[in-house]
C-alpha cells in the first residue's frame, strides 16, 4: 500500500493530489527562503491563522446567496481577503505604534483565529444536521478532494513559483541589504509587498492540503533546512524547493494510505525529517561535520604540542598525545623519540620560531592575523617570504 502510494499507484485522484501537494511544497519552499533571509519567517504564521475567519465568512456568504458553501475558489478568496487584512494589521501595528513585529504577529494570529473560531460555531449552529466540514481547513485533508481542486492547487503552486523566479533578484537584494537595494533604485515597499503577497498566495493555495495552523511550517522548515547546505542564494532556493516538494509528495502519499492519517501534519513531519537529516549531515554546518572538525583539530593540537615537547627534550605524559605519536612512529613504546620523531620535532620547532618572529615583524602583520598556533607556515607564506623571515631569524634559524 505504501509503495503503491509512493509510486503513484493509488488511482488517478490520489496521484493528482500527491503531485499537487508536491508542487505546493516546491513553491512554498522557494518562497519561504526570501522570508527567512529577511528574518520575517514568523509573519507567515500570522498569515496562516488569519485566513480562518475569511474561509468561514466565505462559506457563510456563499450559503447566504444560496450557493454551495464548500466551493473552494470562493473559500480561497475569503481566505486571501482576511489574510491580507491580517497582514495589513501587522504592518500597521509595527509601523504606527510602539509595538514590535513579534507582538503584532502574535496579536493578529490569535485574534483572527479567535474570530474564525467564533464564526465556525456560528456555522455549526446554522448547519444543524449537516456537517459543513470546514474543520478540515484547520489541519488540512486531501481525502475526498475533487479533481478540479487538486489541479487548481498544482496550478496555483506553479504560478507562485513562476513569480518567485521572476522576482528573485530584487527580493534577494532587499533581504540582504535594504539600504543598498534602495540605493539601486528598488522600491522597498513594493518588494516587501510582493514578498508578503507571495507568502499569502502560498498560504491560500495550501490551505486545503495543509490547513491554517500548520501551513507556516511549509514556509519555514524547508528554507531553514536548505540554508544548512549552502551559502549561495540560488542553491538554497533550489534546495528549499526540492525539500518542500519531497515533503509534499511523501506527506500526501502517506496520508492516502490510511483514513486516519491527516495530510497537513504528515507533510510537516516529512519536512522536519528532512530538516533533521540536514542538521546532522550537512557538509559545513551539520552536526556530524562540526564534530569531525573538532576531533581533527584536537588531534592536531595534541600532536603539535607533543612534537614541541620532544624538540625541547621534555618528556610527554599525556596519553592521547603519546598514542598519536606512537601511531605515527614518532616515539618508541617507551616514549623515546625515533629518528623520524626528531626530524618532525625539529620541523615543528622551526615552524614555531618562524611564527614567533613573524608576529614581531610589522611587514607580516596581515599574515600574523592568521596565526592559530597550528597551521604550518608554508601554507600561509610563499617560499620567498619564508626565506625573508629566515633572514631575520639569523644563522641558528635554519637549525
Amino acid at each position: 500500500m505504501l509503495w503503491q502510494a509512493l509510486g503513484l499507484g493509488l488511482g488517478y485522484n490520489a496521484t493528482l493530489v500527491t503531485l499537487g501537494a508536491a508542487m505546493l511544497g516546491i513553491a512554498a519552499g522557494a518562497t519561504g527562503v526570501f522570508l527567512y533571509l529577511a528574518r520575517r519567517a514568523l509573519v507567515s504564521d500570522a498569515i496562516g491563522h488569519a485566513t480562518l475567519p475569511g474561509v468561514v465568512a466565505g462559506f457563510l456568504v456563499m450559503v447566504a446567496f444560496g450557493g454551495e458553501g464548500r466551493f473552494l475558489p470562493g473559500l480561497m478568496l475569503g481566505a486571501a481577503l482576511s489574510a491580507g487584512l491580517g497582514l495589513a494589521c501587522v504592518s500597521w501595528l509595527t509601523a504606527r505604534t510602539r509595538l514590535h513585529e513579534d507582538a503584532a504577529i502574535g496579536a493578529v494570529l490569535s485574534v483572527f483565529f479567535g474570530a474564525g473560531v467564533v464564526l465556525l460555531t456560528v456555522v455549526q449552529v446554522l448547519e444543524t444536521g449537516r456537517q459543513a466540514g470546514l474543520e478540515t481547513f484547520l489541519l488540512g485533508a486531501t481525502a475526498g478532494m475533487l479533481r478540479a481542486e487538486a489541479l487548481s492547487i498544482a496550478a496555483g503552486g506553479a504560478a507562485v513559483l513562476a513569480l518567485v523566479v521572476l522576482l528573485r533578484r530584487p527580493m534577494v537584494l532587499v533581504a540582504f541589504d535594504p539600504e543598498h537595494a534602495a540605493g539601486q533604485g528598488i522600491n522597498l515597499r513594493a518588494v516587501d509587498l510582493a514578498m508578503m503577497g507571495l507568502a499569502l498566495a502560498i498560504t491560500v493555495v495550501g490551505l486545503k492540503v495543509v490547513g491554517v495552523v500548520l501551513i507556516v511550517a511549509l514556509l519555514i522548515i524547508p528554507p531553514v533546512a536548505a540554508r544548512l547546505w549552502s551559502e549561495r542564494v540560488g542553491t538554497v532556493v533550489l534546495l528549499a524547493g526540492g525539500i518542500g516538494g519531497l515533503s509534499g509528495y511523501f506527506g500526501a502519499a502517506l496520508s492516502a494510505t490510511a483514513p486516519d492519517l491527516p495530510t497537513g501534519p504528515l507533510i510537516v513531519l516529512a519536512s522536519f525529517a528532512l530538516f533533521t537529516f540536514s542538521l546532522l549531515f550537512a557538509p559545513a554546518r551539520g552536526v556530524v561535520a562540526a564534530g569531525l572538525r573538532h576531533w581533527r583539530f584536537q588531534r592536531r593540537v595534541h600532536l603539535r604540542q607533543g612534537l614541541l615537547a620532544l624538540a625541547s627534550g621534555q618528556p610527554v605524559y599525556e596519553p592521547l598525545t603519546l598514542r598519536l605519536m606512537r601511531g605515527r612512529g614518532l616515539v618508541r613504546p617507551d616514549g623515546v623519540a625515533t629518528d623520524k620523531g626528531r626530524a618532525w620535532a625539529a620541523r615543528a620547532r622551526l615552524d614555531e620560531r618562524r611564527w614567533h618572529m613573524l608576529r614581531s615583524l610589522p611587514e607580516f602583520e596581515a599574515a600574523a592575523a592568521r596565526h592559530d598556533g597550528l597551521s604550518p607556515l608554508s601554507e600561509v607564506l610563499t617560499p620567498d617570504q619564508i626565506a625573508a623571515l629566515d633572514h631575520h631569524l639569523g644563522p641558528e634559524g635554519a637549525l
Partner: protein
Amino acid sequence: MGAEFVMLSLTPLVIGVLAALACALPGNFLLLRRQALIGDAISHVVLPGIVVAFLLSGRVAAVPMMLGAGGAALVSVALIEVIRRLGRIEPGAAMGVVFTAMFAGGVLLLEQSAASGVHLDVQHALYGNLESLIWLDGDGWGALLDGQALSGLPPELTRMAVVALAVVLFTAVFWRALVIATFDEGFARTLGLPVRALSLALVAVAAMAAVAAFDAVGSIIVIAMFICPPAAARLMTDRMGGQVAWSVGFATLSAILGYVLAGYGPLWLGYESAVSAAGMIATVSGVILALAALAGPRRRGIAPM
C-alpha cells in the same frame, strides 16, 4: 441572575478570568523582552506532551497531562536551543521549526489514538471547551457557602486558581529584579542579579500558566492573553506598574465581556445557541488592542519630557 447563572456561567467566567490573568502577567515581561511569541510556541508544543501522557497513563487525568505538557515545553525549549546553536539558525526560525513539527506530531498521535474512542480531540486542544466547565451542585448563590456543593466545583477551577496565585506571587516577589532585568540586562548583571536564571524562571512560569490555561480553555485564549492585554496596556502608559495594572484590567474585561457576548449575544440577536466563548474572548481582546492602537495615549512611544 440566579441559580441558573451560578450553575452554568459562574465557574466558566471565573476560570476564564483566572486564565486570562495568569497569562497576561508574564505576558507583560515577555512583550518587553521581545519574546511575545513564546506563548504561541508553548501552547502548540504542549499538545504532543498531553497526548503522550495520555497514551502512557491510559486515562484523561490532570496530573499526568500537566506533567506531559510541562515535559513537552521543556523538550521544545531544549530543541530550539540545540537547533539555534548547532545549526546557527536565527531564534525565530528555530522556534518556527520546532513548534510546528511538535504540533504536527501531536496531531498525528492524537488522530492515531483517537480510533479507540478517546475524549480528546484537536478542536478541544485549539479552542477548549470553557462552556462545559459547569457547576452542577451550584444551585444558587447560597451554594458558595455550602461545603458539599463546593466540593462539586470543576477541578479545573482549583487548578487554575492555584496557578494564577503562583503567577501573581512570582510577579510580586521578583518584581524589582524582573523589571530591572527586562529593561537593562547589563545593569541587572552589575547589580549581581541572576539574569539567566530569571529569564528561565519567567519562561517556566509562562509555560506553567500556558499549560494550566490550555487544559481549561484551549490554546487560542493562551496566545491571545499572553499578547493582547499587555500590548494594549503598553500603548496606555510608560510605567511598568501602570502597564501591568492596565493589562490585568484588559484581561479581566476581555474574559468577562467575551464570555457574556458569546453566551448571551446570540440570544439577544434572536438566535438560540451560543458561540465559542474562547474565540470570543480572543476577539474582544483584539478589539481592545485595536482601540488602544487607535487612541491610546502612548501608542507612538514615550511622551516628550
